């Protein structure tokens, strides 16, 4: 693992935290997920192609870690959702009140969507990954990315009352 790798990884920690929160919807679970992802990334640093962007590679690791984690959690019973602990949601004191309310509304609406839609919305619209990168991260064809993303966008817009 070289210095460039670790610098990029550190720079992408906020992205990892965002994606983790989007998947896990609980801050403590998301923190664990980020840590697991970072550990796996370090352990597998040699398999990363330095010529490519690290985001798809990292998000894929995180997603696999999440799948592993949820597989185990299925036997652990119901967990508290992020909606029940509002302070778990990230808040930003900088924008004006209206913008903040809108941001929070988007965030909360997003969290009501099924995981499959949440993750694809997150990768494309928040992390700004291309369809091709998203397909690579999720291990699905681009056509599936487009149909799934389109459904997710329409679901979100409907829930938010966009016309």
């Amino acid at each position, binding site marked *: *693992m070289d210095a460039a790798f670790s610098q990029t990884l*550190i720079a992408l920690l906020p992205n990892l*935290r*965002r994606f983790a*929160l989007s998947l896990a919807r609980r801050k403590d679970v998301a923190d664990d997920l980020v840590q697991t992802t970072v550990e796996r990334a*370090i352990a597998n640093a040699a398999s990363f192609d330095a010529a490519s962007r690290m985001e798809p590679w990292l998000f894929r690791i995180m997603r696999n870690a999440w799948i592993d984690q949820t597989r185990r959690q299925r036997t652990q019973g119901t967990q508290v959702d992020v909606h029940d602990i509002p302070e778990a949601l990230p808040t930003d004191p900088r924008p004006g009140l209206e913008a903040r309310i809108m*941001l929070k509304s988007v965030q909360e609406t997003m969290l009501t969507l099924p995981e499959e839609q949440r993750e694809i919305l997150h990768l*494309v619209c928040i992390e700004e990954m291309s369809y091709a990168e998203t397909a690579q991260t999720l291990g699905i064809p681009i056509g599936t990315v487009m149909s799934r993303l*389109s459904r997710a*966008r329409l679901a979100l817009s409907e829930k938010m009352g966009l016309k």
Partner: protein
Amino acid sequence: MQIDDETLMALADGELDAERADAVRRAVDADPELQARLFRFTETRRLLGGLREDPGQDAGEDPLAAMIRAAAAPASAPASASAMPPMPEPANTNRRPWLAAAASVAIAAFAFGWWQNDKPGPQAFGQPEIAALDELRTGQVRGLDDGTQLSMIASFRGSEGQLCREYEAVNAGTVRTVLACRGSEGWVQRFAALAATEEGTFQPASGESSIDAALQAVGAGAPLTPEEEAAALGDSAEGLPPS
């Protein structure tokens, strides 16, 4: 012009090539219904994009950053890298044939465990082993009285110029790999590992408990040539009682 939702979405996401994007944009400009459908995609993207700007984290460094730097440190610290002598070339071209045979014939049946002796000391050697260390040339095998077959694997010079030798002793289904270095008080064991031929007999392998790590720890250089080894052994043989 029939334009489906996915195409409108691809336009909103900048995923259409220029020509196609122009065509779709022209169609949208002329059709309020298409404009309304496109809006849902551009607006969801815009709104979600706001979440990207949201730091969601306290100011200050992510605690994981330190962990990442620590993991990168060994590879990126030239000082520590240069302090380590280069790993000696594999010297064991004469590794005893029984291990090779075992590995090729019955890998599945053999579970190797390694055990490292943390208390090196001359007491670890009996007189027959000391004699073998002083007398055997690399590649030679000697049968000891207790039935052990002792094979001399290689000789090295450590970082302080001391003579170090690796040998393997096979007895009762186990192979003992030993690294010994000669100091002012005679031969001192620097490493010993037991390779078991029965599953579960020994602790699982540890990455650090290897002969290579031990060689590196004593600062072993390249294996001695037969001439260099003969000269080194000639010195040590002086003063030995005639056998």
